[in-house]
């Protein structure tokens, strides 16, 4: 690359990064603005303003933010734990024995194409009859459903990378199948388990359709609370930005530290970024 090429390269790169990062930074700027600075028509005030904690104070005082936040934490952690157990067992079976000759794996992955509303209709009726609407348990079950296929497929790729010879050697040493899985395979696949678990946490953290349809007050996750600030009567941009700033922080941190694995995760393990 010549000097001109380098200049063009960095100009384009800087522009693209600005387009990506500026809106995210905008959330954090808005979160610290007073209502007067939010509803301004002066372009200067987009960046220059007097920071205030007013929005955060209102958010914590007037809205059940931390209750809803706790719901999100409980639901995403609980569903992820269950998903990891189900998926690691299944993925190992698929990877080692090709169980179901690919058809079962295909069926599993195709649940990801399943429109959420198709599952939502019957479960809404069923939950209403069972009294599971607006419970954390009920929503956790639905999160288990939509994360299982993803986790199974991603883990399948990680299990595939473990050489079969290791397991054969262990069998010669008299290990049982269960011991091989517990003492040899699982420790080897630990990085893959960690990556998959973080993805499940993030998907569950971000999930909106089921959360919105199946909860009202008690089990409401924080994404639904934030969406309620954009009402038809009044739009509460201040608390909305403050809430969003807190809620997206863990996912931004996850994205930064998982950058090597994001592409792999989003392509179900097909592309190693």
């Amino acid at each position, binding site marked *: 690359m010549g000097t001109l090429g380098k200049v063009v390269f960095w100009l384009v790169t800087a522009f*693209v990064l600005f387009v990506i990062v500026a809106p*995210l930074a905008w959330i954090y700027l808005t979160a610290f603005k007073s209502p007067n600075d939010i509803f301004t028509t002066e372009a200067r005030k987009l960046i220059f303003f007097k920071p205030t904690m007013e929005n955060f104070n209102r958010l914590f005082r007037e809205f059940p933010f931390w209750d809803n936040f706790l719901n999100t934490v409980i639901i995403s952690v609980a569903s992820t734990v269950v998903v990891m157990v189900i998926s690691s067992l299944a993925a190992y079976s698929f990877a080692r024995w090709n169980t179901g000759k690919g058809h079962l794996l295909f069926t599993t992955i195709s649940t990801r194409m399943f429109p959420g509303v198709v599952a939502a209709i019957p479960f809404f009726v069923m939950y209403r009859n069972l009294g599971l609407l607006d419970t954390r348990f009920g929503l956790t079950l639905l999160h288990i459903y939509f994360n*299982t296929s993803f986790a199974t497929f991603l883990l399948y790729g990680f299990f595939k990378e473990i050489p079969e010879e290791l397991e054969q050697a262990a069998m010669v040493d008299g290990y049982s199948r269960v011991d091989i899985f517990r003492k040899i395979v699982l420790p080897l696949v630990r990085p893959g388990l960690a990556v998959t678990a973080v993805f499940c946490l993030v998907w569950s953290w971000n999930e909106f359709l089921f959360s919105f349809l199946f909860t009202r007050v008690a089990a409401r996750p924080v994404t639904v609370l934030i969406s309620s600030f954009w009402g038809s009567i009044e739009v509460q941009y201040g608390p909305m930005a403050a809430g969003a700033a807190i809620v997206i922080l863990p*996912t931004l941190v996850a*994205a930064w530290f998982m950058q090597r694995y994001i592409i792999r995760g989003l392509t179900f393990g097909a592309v190693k970024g």
Partner: protein
Amino acid sequence: MRTEAFSEVQTGYAVARKPTIWEVLTSEKYFKWTLLIPLLVVLAIFMLYPLLYCAYYSFHQWGMRGEAIYVGAQNYRQLLNDKAFLEALYRTLKVLVICVSCELLIGLGLALLWSREFPGENIVRGLALLPLLVAPLILSLLWNFMFEYDFGAVNLILQALGLNKVYWWSPQRALYTICFITIWQWFPFSTFVLVAGLRSLPRDVFEAAKVDGASPWYTFRRLTLPMLSPLIMIIVVLRTMWLIRLFDPLYGTTRGGVQTELLDWIVYRTAFVYFDIGYGSTMAIFSLVLTIAVCAIMFKMLMRALGGTR
């Protein structure tokens, strides 16, 4: 004699220990199926049951109260003449085509730019991938505010530059604004899939082409693109799967108003706002069949691509 031998066999059986359930489950023959039991249970409950349920109610009229009335294929006939539904379907396909093609074009351009290693690469990649894991709902709320007519950052900047303010949520523009939000969040995805692809291409082929005096355009068209095609396929299929079910960005912005109603939104409105379970189920089944039809065309290729790059 005979009875004695018989009783001997019997005792032989009685002495051999019957394997415990645990031993059967972890035996060489059944262990692989044992591992799958939890998954199969989840699939049966959360996939098979809703599917059968919706298929059943799609032939009934039911508003969540009273008895469901069997109406035959009437819901399906109604669906094919339902202008609102067909429009939502058309809009969904439009969004699909716009988003996938824009993401691919931007992605390809940036991938070519970033294909060689450069200083600060980790920082660029880290920043560029940030939006991918943020909740689409929150991003759409953010952009909804940024595109606000009076106070939105975009219009304020346009004004400061001496340009006219734009009414981003007008019925003519709203759908494209939603496309923009989606493309903004997802172009880093296709970019870095293609970067990974470009970096794994064999160097010697390209050097040979250079020695032979092939023009850059010719090399790109005849070598780079064909070798990237499995990855482009992966992007198209995965993005189609996600875009066909676009819901969150609608909730954060127009809530299905100003001519932006998409497929999943109209199903939601029918089943959960009007509580018309029968007709909603019909739409859901249709939407599922459509997803499968659209994806099945590409799915074989995807599976091959998934297998090929692994």
